[in-house]
């Protein structure tokens, strides 16, 4: 049977439409299968993930806490450290400066910086880095809760006259409270209830914060610790 030009066009359009319809039907079924079978994360977990996203985009955070009625300010800057005898590759780290004290915190170990570097034992350095809002340390803590799909509770709170969201993470004994700005998801305060610490108030570091003399390292230390901010 011979077809005219119009016949071919009609056939092509019909075939194309059938193909598209068939593929769309399958795509709909595939989407439906995923939507019906797989659980969705809670809205609060998604909020926490957004906070984490905000943190991963930061290189430096400044914080203020009240310890024994005294105001303590810190600044924390992303850095890299290494190579060290125990860690031959460069590691991502946080350089935390509180007054004249300087601390380098990594996932594996923490070091106090003086004229030389001394390894610090125990969990305290990491706690300090988390409370100072170090993007990597705080991000790691929130990330671990999310890795374990720990439940996240969110409630509205007022802080400095503005409505904020308080995210509460809990997994076993481990707890963390973070107050975030509901528009930007930036963390504005953090607290670890188990340690009975007060709130630490966080803000993005400005350029003038980054030129503090405490952040300047000696030439010898600069060979090991490199700031990223």
């Amino acid at each position, binding site marked *: 049977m011979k077809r005219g030009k119009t016949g071919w066009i009609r*056939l*092509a359009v*019909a*075939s*194309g*439409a*059938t*193909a*598209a*319809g*068939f*593929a*769309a039907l*399958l*795509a709909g*079924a*595939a*989407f439906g*299968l*995923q*939507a019906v*079978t*797989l*659980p*969705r*994360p809670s809205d609060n*977990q*998604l909020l926490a*993930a957004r906070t*984490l*996203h905000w*943190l*991963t985009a930061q290189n430096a955070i400044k914080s203020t806490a009240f310890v024994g009625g005294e105001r303590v300010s810190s600044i924390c800057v992303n850095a890299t450290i290494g190579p060290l005898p125990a860690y*031959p*590759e*460069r*590691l*991502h780290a946080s350089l935390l400066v509180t007054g004249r004290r300087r601390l380098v915190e*990594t*996932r594996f170990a923490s070091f106090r910086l003086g004229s030389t570097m001394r390894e610090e034992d125990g969990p305290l350095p990491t706690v300090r880095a988390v409370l100072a809002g170090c993007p*990597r340390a705080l*991000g*790691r803590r929130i*990330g*671990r809760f*999310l*890795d374990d*799909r720990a439940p996240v509770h969110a409630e509205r709170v007022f802080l400095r006259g503005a409505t904020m969201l308080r995210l509460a993470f809990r997994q076993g004994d481990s707890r963390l409270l973070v107050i975030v700005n509901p528009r930007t998801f930036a963390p504005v305060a953090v607290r670890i209830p188990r340690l009975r610490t007060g709130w630490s108030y966080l803000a993005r570091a400005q350029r003038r914060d980054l030129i503090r003399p405490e952040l300047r390292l000696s030439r010898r230390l600069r060979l090991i610790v490199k700031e990223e901010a």
Partner: protein
Amino acid sequence: MAARATRDSGGGDRLAGAGARRSSRRPLVALAWRTAPASRRLDLALSILSYWDGAWYRTVADQGYLLIPGRQSDPAFFPLFPIVLRGLNGLGLSFLTSGLLVANVAFVVGIVAFYEVSRRLLPLDVARMSAMLAALFPMSFVFSMTYPESLVFAALALALVFALDGRWTLSAIAGAAAALGRPEAIFFALPLVAIAIGRARASGRVAGGRAIGAAFAPVASVATFPLYLGWALDNVSAWSHAQRAWGRAFSLDGIVHAFQQLHEPGSTPWLWRDVAFCLIYLGLLAAARRVGISGPWLVASAALVLLPLASGTFLSDARFGLLALPVYWGAAALARRRVVRLPVLVVSAALLVAGTMTIPLVNP
């Protein structure tokens, strides 16, 4: 996935941690093996098959997806395998048992279906040999692990058998399922189109809408995953974000990075295994031409082997290439002579055993 991310990438925690846990666990595994009674040894051996990415698939099956910025997270893993695990878990099987059961049953189905594809395209002796080689290929231990490879292998082979028989609806369903298991399955849209056109030509008619629709089913199916992630996580590009945290970022100069990575200090020597398999796959594809495998099959398979390199690493290419079906036809073509056949099978089986022993050491 992995090696580049095992270096401290700020987000490498989980895998590096897992890697460290694995390596510190190795002597314990050996000790447990020596002291365990025979029945417990079977449990230990089976648990090894659930190592590495198997844990991630179980997490998705149990808790769904969640993109965790700056860290390795599960949207990097396609949903078919977790969906099947979740279904079986609903019937009362544990995720681990379901994973092992699905992987191994699907592998048997896949080998039979692959033999049927081969039989329709090649002489019977080559078809039989290629099925045997697929079962005994040195990397085929992955098909027994709690990975989606065997499920995708079976779905792909079924999609192709049904297409060769002109059963387009079944082909479309199998093709769509394959693409929900691993994105590489979309490359097989190419041979599916070629089959549709070839069958239409043979019957002197135009390829029907259903045939074309079935050929594009894998593409349509892959597209639903980002849409699902957009719906579930409010992030359509969650997959590519997650891939980046795993040390994979597609770029034009990705292949250059893949070669550079081979010489980076601290890069795992296991990368050379993947390089070797990449070359073997390409060589076997060239050999597949000798038994008359047509261009679309070879192009799809070459893309499946080479495109992952554009993400900047050779890592896991040995595993990815397992789905390039013409590779086994090439191997069968080389082993067609009777004197070669037995040694090839014996060497392949020995390498398969050796490969299986490497599971606790390295991500396949």
